[in-house]
């Protein structure tokens, strides 16, 4: 199995959705100065488990195969 563009889009959507509303100011600050390091910090700060979100996507695809 390979990661498709659709899976990537879904993961992005879920990452953004997992950030609570209280993260708005930090998210806007990241948008103005985007970096992977900053993104990691943002997700960590709000306890968003990106690895688990990605695994869930892979498992879903695997179950649909």
């Amino acid at each position, binding site marked *: *199995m*390979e*990661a498709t563009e659709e*899976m*990537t*889009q*879904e*993961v*992005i*959507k*879920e*990452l*953004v*959705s997992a*950030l609570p*509303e209280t993260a*708005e100011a930090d*998210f*806007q600050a*990241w*948008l103005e100065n*985007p*970096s*992977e390091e900053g*993104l*990691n910090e943002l997700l960590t700060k709000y306890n968003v488990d*990106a*690895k*688990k*979100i*990605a*695994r*869930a*996507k*892979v*498992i*879903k695809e*695997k*179950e649909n195969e």
Partner: protein
Amino acid sequence: MNNFEEVGNSYNEKETMRARGENTIAAAELSEIQQRRLEALESNEVALGTMKNFAKKTLASALLAVALASSVVACSKTEEIMNTEQAENVLRFQVESIEIHGGPNLRNEPRVADRDSQNTLADFDDSEQRIMVPYQGEMLFYDNDFDKNGAWVGFPAEEFANLLHDESFITRGEADKIIRHEEKKPGDETVWINRDYVDFKKAED
């Protein structure tokens, strides 16, 4: 309509996804602020590119993690070690977490010494992938001195299978396969993994 709006945009679709047991967040569940964030992201080329790279890397890592976990599932055929004359070689202690990492020759039978046998199930020689499993509880440590077959660590099959599924390492079907095996052979209820490929943190006494 942008890429994000296309995904799960109707209430009916969300209900269908729920009925199929999928945990995807449908667009109908997104708050206004989340929708705005997605639109802002899509209109910011640099941020979107950064997010895409991050998502692709995370997905690549997830693919490896799931493949590694599946190989662990494949080696879950268990034996009634506790009922054999070798039971004295089994230790029990509590662990706080475990980490499984890549290595060849994951096998389904801790007492088979032949590395070329059909019990060899996977080869992760070239992978640096590690998966952290938040398992807390009793772990068995079985040193197969009798067969000169190394050491193995064991976990309660049903609990371990459900945990791997809850953490999205294995499919429901793979978890059920372990549980069904346990039901088929009562008392034969341990998932064994070669100790060489597992690091564990013992709980404080």
